[in-house]
């Protein structure tokens, strides 16, 4: 079984090299994030003013910032926080959204109409502004960034799960599950949602990149994460002051890290769907 799975993954990746590349990048990113505290050459928060604002060199690969902190170490450690915020926010909105959307798609009727209008209202807000307002209202803390990012992603998951469950709810195997003694709840949880998962995996992957960007954006404007915590958004914000004087490395490296993280999660999406869908196996 495991061998067959690996063969299948190998087959999908051979036909889709970009996915393979994105997969490698994403795993590297995750490993780096996990191992960052042991990988970094310098303490990411220790300032060393005499060595401030050094351009990239053999000791400080990405240079140092205005307080003499090693940017390479800071970028590495920041990956941990940014990925964690994004991953928790996306899993939260995926779980909650899939449940709500699944229920709406399966039950239909009044529940579906009410939730549908609620989602419409949510989507009518400019999402980033909504997230800002939520963090401001809930309190300027990291976990509130997670909640805010989860809430603004929720509509996509609800709509997606609703549509995917809705087209399947009258299929024979759903009715058969009922005749086999499964309750409505069980049918949704054990039969319908697992079938929707492959399609949602694409959404999750795209969303991860987007959530990273969102978290960085919030801290860029000074919400959530506070200095001196290393975080890509803050680093870009702090470095922006120095870009006019030609000190490009303060902004460029966290920015590049942000961009490559978003890019590889976006590329991963389609490949994931092919891997997870049992029907693409023969």
């Amino acid at each position, binding site marked *: 079984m495991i061998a067959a799975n690996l063969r299948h993954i190998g*087959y999908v990746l051979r036909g889709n090299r970009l996915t393979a590349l994105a997969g490698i990048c994403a795993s590297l990113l995750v490993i780096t994030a996990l191992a960052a505290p042991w990988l970094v050459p310098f303490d990411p928060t220790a300032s060393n003013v005499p060595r401030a604002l050094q351009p990239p060199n053999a000791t400080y690969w990405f240079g140092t910032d205005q307080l003499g902190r090693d940017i390479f170490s800071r970028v590495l450690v920041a990956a941990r926080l940014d990925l964690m915020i994004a991953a928790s926010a996306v899993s939260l909105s995926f779980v909650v959204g899939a449940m709500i959307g699944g229920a709406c798609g399966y039950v239909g009727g009044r529940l579906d109409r009410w939730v549908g209008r609620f989602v419409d209202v949510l989507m009518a807000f400019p999402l980033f502004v909504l997230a800002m307002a939520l963090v401001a209202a809930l309190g300027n803390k990291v976990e509130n960034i997670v909640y805010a990012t989860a809430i603004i992603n929720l509509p996509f998951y609800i709509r997606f799960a609703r549509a995917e469950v809705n087209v399947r709810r009258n*299929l*024979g*195997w759903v*009715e*058969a*599950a*009922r*005749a*086999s*003694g*499964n*309750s*409505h709840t069980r049918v949704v949880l054990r*039969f319908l949602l*697992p*079938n929707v998962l492959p399609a949602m995996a694409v959404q999750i992957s795209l969303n991860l990149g987007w959530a990273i960007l969102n978290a960085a954006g919030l801290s860029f404007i000074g919400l959530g994460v506070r200095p001196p915590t290393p975080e890509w958004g803050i680093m870009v914000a702090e470095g922006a002051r120095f870009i006019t004087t030609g000190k490009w490395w303060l902004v460029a490296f966290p920015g590049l890290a942000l961009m490559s993280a978003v890019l590889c999660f976006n590329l991963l999406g389609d490949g994931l769907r092919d891997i997870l869908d*049992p*029907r693409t*196996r*023969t």
Partner: protein
Amino acid sequence: MNVPLLSVDDLAVEFATRNGRVQALRGVSLAVSPGETLGVVGESGSGKSVTAFATMGLLERAGRITAGRIVFRGENITAAPRSVMQPLRGAAMSMIFQNPRAALNPIRSVGLQIADALRAHRPLSLSAATAAALELLKAVRIRDPEKRLHAYPHELSGGMCQRVMISIALACEPALLIADEPTTGLDVTTQKTVMDIVTKLTRERDMAMILITHDLGLAAQYCDRIAVMEQGQVVETADPSRLFSQPQHGYTRRLVAASPRRGSTVASLVVDATMPAAKMAPPPMRKPGAGPLLDIRNLVKLFPGGVTAVNDVSFRIGAGESLGLVGESGSGKSTISRLVCRLMNQTSGEIIFDGEDIGAIPERDFHRCALRRDIQIVFQDPSDSLNPRFTAFDSIVDPLRRLLGESGATALRARARDIATRVGLPIDLLDRFPHQLSGGQKARVGIARAIAVDPRLLILDEPTAALDVSVQAVVLHLLDRLRRESGLAFLFVSHDLNVVRMMCERLVVLQNGAIVEHGVSQAIFDEPQTDYARELLAAIPHFDPEARA
């Protein structure tokens, strides 16, 4: 015979798939002359449609013609470039497809779509094309053609959509029409009208037609010659009367035998006894003298929007008895099967099972009822009725887990093997996913799941409608055997009167949600009392060549 309009010589087509190359056609030769109708029959995967697509130059990218020739009007069009094929398609040769609704553009009115077909090949103004479209709609005998011209596909029934497709196909008066399963999915009476229109129009215009179908009766009734295909080869070509009276090839013989007709019985459908012959003992009656197993009284189901799907239906099924429910689409037979199975709540009426009014239990709570295991259902399309993420084993043991509370892995494994053996499913297939099984195997898994908990009433909702005739024969055989072995009662829902007559002692004929006729199957078959039943019976295509229109 004069010079053929189209001749296909020794055509071979292969498809590139991830498991290497697959030979779809291996040396197919066909010819059709003007004014002639050639039937191409065979089961799914035999290469009928590939032949048609190759002829039209519409093979998908993975397909490639590796050998052979296609000659149309004396011109070699084998793998011809688009510049050659485009002017031919629609103008000289055209095609009607299986699912007319899917083949029409849903956001364009049908009048415009017909006009599009005309204007693709002729310099016509829109108004002239629309006028021509109106004439075409009149030719296919659509009611209110002026009104239909502006209708969208979703506003028309399946039969009407197919008529529109026919008028599009005939718009530029092609010399050759390829009809690929043109009536699959349509009711028998609609099928008859559609086929009568097609044959009339093609004959009037002296066109050649290739009718691709899996239905031997249909081919027999409307074709001058029939080619039988099996695994990418034409195994036999003959005129219908000879083909059906003296089939030469072994495959043709099996196919002819497997097609139900007036005199056939379940046993006569399967020539080679791969299965033990059913003992023709009368079905055992449990609890003789007791009340009926199922008693339906004044059942009514209204759908939102004021549609009456089931209108005051009452019938009974005794223990071990088999009752057929027949009617066209929209007659309410599927709704009744779901009401009886407690997958849907009725609006009013009683459903009494073994003395208990199960109609009083809402469908939401019925999974907890002790009678849940006694009423099971087999669904129409075996592909739709299995969870794509469950293996055959998972599907079969799900009811055992849920309804009998069994959980031991070894016990479940043993039960699943038992059940698989009973339905003739090879045990090594238990670990496969639905997409790795054939249609017949999926049907068996569906039946295995339904009988796993030893129900007393089995609802069969068009159990063979999506299957090939030879598979249908085997599945009917299996169902009949199961019923005799275990004294199951059947509620057999079908649009196929021949199948119902073989499987059921009594018959209920439904129209628009109400019962129009109710009685012993053979009696209804021999002497239908109502016009509707007569019409249904007359529309069944049959082999008898003298009865040809």
